[in-house]
């Protein structure tokens, strides 16, 4: 297998190293996540991360890049994204400007040529000037290939792109090289760590799924969520942390439209901190419920249960015993 780890990714020697490395930059990993990252390096495969919004899919890529100290190249997908936006483009404007400026020089260049053919041939020999690196606008995919010390390439929300783009991406990711017809093939010296994320707006093609390692990040359990909030929000008291995470965990078990994710928990922790709350109480919770829940109907549904949930969260017992976080 990979006996030697490519430059740029040296710290990734074992799963434990990945877990602790990610933790050092504030990302609380799980064994599943670390294993996937480890294998991504070992098998040189992209990771496709699925899961609800706000559980740290994008953040994994950012944290990896921060930890490894390699550049993060982000490609946000949307409907209509095409190669020009993802790979490279010629700087048309600059090319145009230069040709305009060099117009006067034209006579000097072809001046001494007699026939049309020979002057055309002479011009032809300058063609490469205008299609050189100088006029190449490098987009994330190409930039990632050109990093000499490795990089993290994040293709965010791939499910929002079109199928054609998905197919094109497959081609690039299969051998980590890009061909620019006018210049030649650019091959990555050190293949980037590729992370694709999906929110399941549409079902991804089988071909893409096959070529990726699949990682599903779900809602965290109580302990992990507590650690995440602790890493993200400074100065929150142990008690309050325990109570609010307990509360959020119970809310997730309720039948609501959009279950709060880690991002919301972190926001809520910050809110409570700002309000100088020392412990969870009904009034605080009711006033700040809109940070946690994003639908009017959800807020209404949870409001009724607030006293019960708060009581259970503060007494340290789970609100709905028997129900595990799904």
């Amino acid at each position, binding site marked *: 297998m990979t006996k030697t780890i490519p430059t740029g990714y040296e710290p990734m020697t074992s799963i434990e190293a990945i877990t602790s490395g990610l933790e050092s930059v504030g990302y609380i990993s799980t*064994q599943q996540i670390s294993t996937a990252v480890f294998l991504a390096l070992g098998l040189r495969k992209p990771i496709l991360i699925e899961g609800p919004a706000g559980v740290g899919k994008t953040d994994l890529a950012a944290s990896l890049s921060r930890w490894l100290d390699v550049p993060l190249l982000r490609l946000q997908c949307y*409907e209509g994204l095409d190669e020009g936006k993802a790979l490279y483009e010629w700087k*048309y404007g600059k090319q145009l400007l230069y040709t305009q400026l060099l117009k006067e020089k034209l006579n000097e260049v072809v001046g001494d040529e007699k026939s049309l053919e020979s002057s055309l041939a002479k011009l032809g020999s300058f063609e490469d000037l205008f299609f050189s690196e100088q006029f190449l606008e490098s987009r994330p995919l190409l930039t990632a290939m050109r990093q000499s010390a490795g990089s993290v390439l994040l293709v965010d929300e791939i499910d929002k792109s079109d199928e054609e783009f998905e197919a094109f991406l497959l081609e690039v990711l299969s051998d980590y090289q890009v061909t620019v017809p006018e210049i030649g093939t650019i091959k990555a010296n050190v293949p980037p760590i590729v992370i694709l994320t999906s929110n399941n707006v549409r079902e991804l093609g089988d071909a893409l799924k096959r070529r990726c390692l699949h990682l599903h990040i779900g809602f965290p359990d109580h302990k992990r969520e507590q650690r995440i909030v602790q890493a993200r929000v400074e100065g929150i008291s142990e008690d309050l942390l325990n109570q609010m995470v307990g509360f959020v965990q119970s809310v997730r078990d309720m039948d609501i439209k959009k279950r709060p994710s880690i991002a919301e928990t972190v926001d809520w922790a910050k809110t409570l901190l700002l309000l100088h709350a020392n412990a969870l109480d009904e009034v605080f919770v009711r006033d700040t419920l809109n940070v946690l829940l994003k639908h009017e109907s959800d807020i209404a549904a949870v409001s009724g249960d607030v006293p019960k949930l708060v009581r259970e969260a503060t007494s340290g017992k789970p609100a709905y015993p028997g129900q595990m976080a799904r």
Partner: protein
Amino acid sequence: MDRQITSFIRALRASDVRVSTGEALDAARAVSVTGYADRNFLKDALRCTLAKSPDEVVTFDELFEAYFATRDIPGGKSSDTQSDPGSDAPYTDIDPVELMESGDEAAIAAALERAADAVDADDIRFSTQVAYFAQQMVKQMGGEKLQERLMQAFQERSEEGEAEAERLIEMRRDLTLRARERVQRSYDIFGKGETEQFRNDFAENKKLSAIELSDMARMKVLVARIAKRLAVKHSRRRRKKNRGQLDVRRTMRANAGVDGVPFNVVWRQKRRERPKIVVICDVSGSVARYVRFLLLLLWSMKDVVPDMHAFAFSNKLVDVDDILEDNPFEHAMDIILRVAGMGSTDYGQAWSDLKTNHESLIDRRTTIIVLGDGRSNYDDPRTDLFRDFSARAKRTIWLNPEPLAAWGTGDSEIPRYRPYCSTMNHVATLKDLERAVDDVLSAYS
């Protein structure tokens, strides 16, 4: 690639997790990185190479536990017994009595594994084969010897002989039981998925009118699966590039920065129409069963086709959108049958109700789906109204549960409606329904 992995992948495939050869190779490479020593590590590694959707992850987790719970993991501790020189001897050399007497659980388990291997217990496909395989396994493990000793004990005709026979019988029962358990496990891993698959295929092609209530649970799962399949197929993007037609305005704007020289050309895009479905169901006795499945299928696709309206009638036309919206499906069906299912069928009345109350629903992007047998009790079929609807709508699809031969017999008005339908199909099975709905949605792409 080692045998544990290939055989585990076979089990996954049997349980409807699609694993490609490429993925199998990835799994093998992953294992070569992880090794078998740490089971959790192995599980995570295999999971991210083999299971690629939430459903598959669930199946994977179950199977992994079942599969690796009992099997020897190469490189693990138990492989010592495999490399044991004694194990190379033919299995029939084992004396089952000695083995069972020794009480060495590890040895017994190893012997069971070997016997299971020898009779290819993993090839089991149906639960009815369990007994057969178990019997074969006992035979492999020297069941005949046990039998011989049993006969001997009986022939002694003494007190001790009887006691010995009793003991041996007990032993045989224990052995058979263990063998059965072992085969059952194989069946759970390898056979169950395939049997399910077989049953599902069968149910999909079974006549809807012949489906028992006990099968409803299975049918519901199937319908949900079909709905998902169709949804994936038809929830693609709604815009289509129309190459060849220049969007002058947007091209000029896009190239304002380069002095209006059109480097970036913008083509006109054609917006696809959103599907709009009006489904009209005859819920009189003969057709009601089919209505259940059609509505279940269509309502499962509400996310893809939000613009969907359902009506039920036997004579008076009833708008059933709200009933379906507010109640669990089975309950909603009962209500629908109660409010709309009474009375003798009158298609003409239904059309005129549609005309007076809901005509505005039918426009050029509407597909009208009619589910009915067209038996209108010799009343005026009001083909004039039906013709108008058909002319206004994008398409009109008639699904008829009666076979072709019965069309137009007795009070069937089918031949008079037929000219105004885009298509008129006989639907009998779930497959037919899937095809019909697929056809409706395909017209919008």
